[in-house]
């Protein structure tokens, strides 16, 4: 698979990152929802730390992913898509990327403001870029939650659009991001 502009597939790296991050985002969101109101217990401490480790991993992978996307341009939108549709897709992807960075960064700041330094995987202490400040922490947790819900909404929109392409427009757009290459080989056989 050549990551050239003529290709109708994303690169293997882009596909791997997409699905890995999809899984990490959904898992982190669900854990975040579940843990927020737990009573103090080892389970709560464990989930909070896992959530923070996942969040920082998402941040780091998203930085790499954006760099990869810049170096390996995604395949062009199908010609069947209208200009409005293309622009809408473009803006949704932009919003998703902004949130991939913002949600973890605000979560990290919330942790620092609460007096808990983030130590990635319990091994790598990350700097506190905001001071310990309880009123600030109370604001940051609200912002973190609001941004996470916005990200969830954007992901839902993204999934709905992908399904619409697949089942309504039947333009095989989904195959560009599929971890399976079945479709490609079938297409090649058919040609």
């Amino acid at each position: 698979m050549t990551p050239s502009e003529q290709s109708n597939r994303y690169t293997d790296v882009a596909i791997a990152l997409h699905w890995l991050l999809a899984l990490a985002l959904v898992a982190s969101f669900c854990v975040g929802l579940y843990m927020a109101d737990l009573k103090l217990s080892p389970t709560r401490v464990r989930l909070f730390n896992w959530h923070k480790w996942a969040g920082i991993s998402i941040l780091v992978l998203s930085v790499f992913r954006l760099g990869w996307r810049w170096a390996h341009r995604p395949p062009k939108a199908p010609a069947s898509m209208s200009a409005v549709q293309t622009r809408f897709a473009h803006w949704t992807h932009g919003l998703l990327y902004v949130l991939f960075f913002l949600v973890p960064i605000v979560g990290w700041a919330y942790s620092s403001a609460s007096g808990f330094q983030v130590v990635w995987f319990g091994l790598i202490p990350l700097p506190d870029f905001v001071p310990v400040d309880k009123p600030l922490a109370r604001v940051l947790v609200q912002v973190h939650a609001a941004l996470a819900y916005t990200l969830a909404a954007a992901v839902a929109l993204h999934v709905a659009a992908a399904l619409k392409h697949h089942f309504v427009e039947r333009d095989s757009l989904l195959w560009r991001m599929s971890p399976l290459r079945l479709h490609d080989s079938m297409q090649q056989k058919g040609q």
Partner: protein
Amino acid sequence: MARTLGAGLALLLALGQAQAGSEAPALVAGQSEISFVSRQMGVPVAGNFRSFDAQVSFDPANPQKGHFLIGVDVASVQLPTDDAMKEVVGPGWFDAAHFARATFQSSAIRALERGRFEVAGRLSIKGRAQDVLVPVFLEQTGALTVASGSLVVRRLAFSIGEGEWTDTSMVADEVQIRFRLVLTGIAPI
């Protein structure tokens, strides 16, 4: 402003005591700190005690005759979250309802190099006692003497964090205690 005034008063008081010469050393509680750092899954979590007192007799010229008795009201513990503060005074941790005071009572003081001392004593928390050696650094600033140092204790030796909290991969056994006691009435070193 109140703080500055308080410090000023303390200083005046200290000067008065230094002139009187015979006053017993006293703790300037407002300027003193007893804090600690524990680790939760590798994350350093800092706390401190708001209420503590000290009975001290100490003459740097004659350190072996000195004596320290430090008392801490464990219910005055401060931690980053309200949940943690509520939890840690409970029966599984400090059990403040039954063991309100943690104490350190010195048994022997040995002078090391200038300004440095090694204080042996008994640390009692939650009704459990351990013999500890505490390195103490004394520093004179005006009429005040600052005694500072730190020591590492094992929380499980005092049954702090029982039941599901005994897991040291969750909360490390080692806890670092740091202190900075500001004292009046001690002769300059």
